[in-house]
């Protein structure tokens, strides 16, 4: 499992080289990995569909209870199969769709890294690991939406998607920390068995709300739905993968995953069912009145995400079964339809349904599979979409409360859904031939047809034989969402009942709406004006506010005077330390003056003399030299107390600091006395306060010893477990290696910062 996740990242790193080596075939070659992963995940199927769940763990930071652990059960396996299976088609598809693009190598890097993050997210058992993968999907998705980085819109909407999802991620982080506190573990597999404890916990409400914000932003629920259609600035393979089949479902995955531990309460039901239902209707409504190919598909994805959220909220057995069936059905038809949208763009140059018509003779194969997928979208018998929709309607009609409003929204959605399916499945292919921007000379290449063909056909196969999907995985997935085995099953024919009647009615009503599409769109033109006051407006207002705030605080805090920076830092430190010392009533011990030795007095005298000289001299070079002497004397102190390593380091750092200052000195203007006496007195006061504070702090640490010192442990363990006699070094590179890693990272960052300051200023001036 570890190797499976890691392999995607390794291949991502190697992708540009592979692309260069294999050229035109690169999509097929790189597609081998997702295909292999799909087969690998299939090998878990027998165990999982018999109801097992498998936990695999590798220790990571045992001291912090963080381990890299994976949980394979029905839900995560369903997602893993979708991600790797559709991933295969996307990679091969992109190889042809973006053929000749100079950044194709870079594209492979990000899309493979995204696939790895997504697999990690759905398979992770540890909450921290899950969160890391969650954020990785946000970041990789940002890079993918902004793939056409020379286009200002692509950059803007990539940033918008990033802000919304990462902002939600921040809430999620707080939420999962509380969840771990409430559930008493960082492992999902344990938290899920602890549902009652979590639901009774005092933190239940805040943690639920925070997690919901995380899930709703990621899965584009109202009022955060605006970022998803904007993310269509990405190349089509990305939209097909991220914004239909995988990433946007991460929020839904999270809700489904946590259902056994958070679900079942009134607030869970009300929030999820209401937000889900409203999102569902908003999505399909906006899809109906859009004309852009990808926009229609994007809004219908919003519809699907809303439906899933609503079903998980309803939480009955039928609802959960419906949710899993709908999830599978949607991934299949939406993946196929997005790839068809790419074909329309690639072969006919059409990005808008109004530009298309009568293309069935030019693109016969594409048309056939597009219609098949659209039938599933519309929920027409005998496609798998029909099975899922029937179950969905049944679940909504049986909902424990809010029945009326949910049913109304569901029926309206079903009607508009049929109309949207007609727009996708009829408009481009039938009717009079419309002149497309490009005249298609031939149907799409095999690499681009494989995905729609297989995905759309699976929709038909699972529709005719729902047991195939059911016994295979859907039942196990619903069981892991419910936290208990599921008795229900999927069937194509449920007899003549209300859901069937609604389906039939929505087919007719939806057909009429499609017939009157032009008029309906015109009648709905007011929505555009209303949308100007929608949530996206709020987003832009917030961003403007954020920029204004940062400008203000930069003006105040970073005014360009080094003096003020130092004052702020020093005053803050002294103030915080002082207050803390007061609060905790830190005592200050006395000193044993008699133990002072003569050489120590001498060193102290040199220290004080160098310090005074550095402060009082009027020559810069003199001050630098005095500081150097100060540093070397401190090194002497270290050596005296047998900290040889620290002493050597101090000497070297002092040397380099002096050199650094000498390099800078040349660049400074002549020595001028610009500050008034009053200012200098103030500065001296601040310096004295800081110095006094540090002195007191050191004196108090001599006295206070709250814990036994860890030094003895290091001294004892250095040779047996660290194999080294230099304790300082063993601590640095072995016992505390993670700290050192952090330190060298800071060092590297500082160097890059200096580099940027020097270089970019020089460029500005030019």
């Amino acid at each position, binding site marked *: 499992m570890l190797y499976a996740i890691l392999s995607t990242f390794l291949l991502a790193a190697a992708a540009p080289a592979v692309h260069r080596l294999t050229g035109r075939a690169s999509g097929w070659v790189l597609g081998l990995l997702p295909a292999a992963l799909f087969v690998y995940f299939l090998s878990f199927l027998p165990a999982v569909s018999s109801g097992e769940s498998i936990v695999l763990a590798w220790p990571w930071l045992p001291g912090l209870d963080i381990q890299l652990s994976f949980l394979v059960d029905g839900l995560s396996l369903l997602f893993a199969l979708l991600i790797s299976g559709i991933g295969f088609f996307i990679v091969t598809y992109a190889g042809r769709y973006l053929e000749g693009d100079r950044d194709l190598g870079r594209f492979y890097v990000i899309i493979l890294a995204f696939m790895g993050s997504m697999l990690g997210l759905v398979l992770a058992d540890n909450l921290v690991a899950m969160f890391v993968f969650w954020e990785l999907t946000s970041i990789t998705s940002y890079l993918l939406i902004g793939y056409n980085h020379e286009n200002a819109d692509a950059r803007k909407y990539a940033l918008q998607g990033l802000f919304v999802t990462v902002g939600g991620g921040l809430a999620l982080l707080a939420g999962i920390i509380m969840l771990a506190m409430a559930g008493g573990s960082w492992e999902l597999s344990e938290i899920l068995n602890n549902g009652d404890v979590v639901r009774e916990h005092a933190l239940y409400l805040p943690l639920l709300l925070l997690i919901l914000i995380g899930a709703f932003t990621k899965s584009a629920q109202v009022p955060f739905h605006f970022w998803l259609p904007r993310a269509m600035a990405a190349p089509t393979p990305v939209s097909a993968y991220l914004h239909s089949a995988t990433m946007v479902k991460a929020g839904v995955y999270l809700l489904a995953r946590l259902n056994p531990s958070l679900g079942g309460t009134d607030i869970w039901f009300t929030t999820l069912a209401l937000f889900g239902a409203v999102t569902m209707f908003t999505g399909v409504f906006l899809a109906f009145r859009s004309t852009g190919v990808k926009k229609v598909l994007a809004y219908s994805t919003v519809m699907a995400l809303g439906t899933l959220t609503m079903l998980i909220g309803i939480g009955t057995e039928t609802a959960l079964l419906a949710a899993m069936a709908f999830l599978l059905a949607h991934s299949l038809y939406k993946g196929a339809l997005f790839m068809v949208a790419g074909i329309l763009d690639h072969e006919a140059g059409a990005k808008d349904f109004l530009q298309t018509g009568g293309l069935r003779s030019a693109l016969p194969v594409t048309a056939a599979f597009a219609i098949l997928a659209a039938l599933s979208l519309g929920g027409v018998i005998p496609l798998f979409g029909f099975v899922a929709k029937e179950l969905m309607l049944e679940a909504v009609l049986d909902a424990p409360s809010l029945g009326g409003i949910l049913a109304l929204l569901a029926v309206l959605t079903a009607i508009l859904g049929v109309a949207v399916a007609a727009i996708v499945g009829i408009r481009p292919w039938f009717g009079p031939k419309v002149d497309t921007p490009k005249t298609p000379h031939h149907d799409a290449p095999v690499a681009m047809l494989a995905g729609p063909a297989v995905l759309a056909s699976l929709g038909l196969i699972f529709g005719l034989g729902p047991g195939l999907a059911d016994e295979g995985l859907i039942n196990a997935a619903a069981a892991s969402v419910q936290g208990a085995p599921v008795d229900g099953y999927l069937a194509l024919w449920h007899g003549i009942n209300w859901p069937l009647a609604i389906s039939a009615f929505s087919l007719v009503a939806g057909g009429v709406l499609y017939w009157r599409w032009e008029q309906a769109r015109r009648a709905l033109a007011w929505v555009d004006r209303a949308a100007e006051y929608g949530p996206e407006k709020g987003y832009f207002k917030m961003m403007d506010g954020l920029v204004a705030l940062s400008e203000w605080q930069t003006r105040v805090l970073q005014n360009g005077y080094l003096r003020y920076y130092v004052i702020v830092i020093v005053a803050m430190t002294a103030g915080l330390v002082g207050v803390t010392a007061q609060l905790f009533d830190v005592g200050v011990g006395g000193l044993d003056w008699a133990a002072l030795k003569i050489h120590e007095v001498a060193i102290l005298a040199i220290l004080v003399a160098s310090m005074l000289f550095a402060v009082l001299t009027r020559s810069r070079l003199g001050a630098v030299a005095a500081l150097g002497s100060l540093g070397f004397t401190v090194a002497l102190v270290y050596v005296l107390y047998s900290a040889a390593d620290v002493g050597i380091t101090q000497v070297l750092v002092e040397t380099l600091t002096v050199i650094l200052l000498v390099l800078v000195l040349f660049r400074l203007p002549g020595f001028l006395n610009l500050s008034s006496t009053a200012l200098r007195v103030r500065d001296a006061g601040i310096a004295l306060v800081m110095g006094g504070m540090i002195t007191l702090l050191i004196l108090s640490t001599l006295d206070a010893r709250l814990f036994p010192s860890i030094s003895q442990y290091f001294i004892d363990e250095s040779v047996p477990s660290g194999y080294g006699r*230099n304790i300082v*070094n063993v601590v640095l590179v072995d016992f505390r290696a993670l700290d050192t890693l952090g330190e060298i990272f800071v060092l590297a960052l500082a160097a890059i910062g200096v580099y940027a300051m020097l270089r970019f200023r020089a460029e500005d001036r030019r």
Partner: protein
Amino acid sequence: MNMHSLILRTAGHFLLPLLLLFSVFLLLRGHDEPGGGFIGGLVAAAAIVLYLFSMDIQSARKVLRVDPRDVLGVGMVLAVISAIPGVFRGEAFFTAQWWEFTAPLFGEMKLSTVLIFDIGVYLVVIGSVLTIMLNLAEAED
């Protein structure tokens, strides 16, 4: 900023290889005696800076052969990579792994992820110091 000092130039020529060797010596013996990646890195960086003072920036860059920013990056990568082998042995991330073997000529040798990590630190220190120093020196011209 050539100092035009014959003594410094001659000394710089001779001291550079000696100091670099010394820095590697410090790096390798660091686990048992005073030294280590940080100190070794500082010595190596100081050696190049001395050369920079005695000659000029072009020759300092030439003697370094690679851009200090690349040294920095390679160092970070090495430090991170050294954390990973432990995971494959079923131990925690960053657990040190040791390999002991007997090599001809050298006798018994010990290699470890700790050494890789220390080399990473060594390179990061060299890279950071020289990125700052060389660019400051260049900005001055």
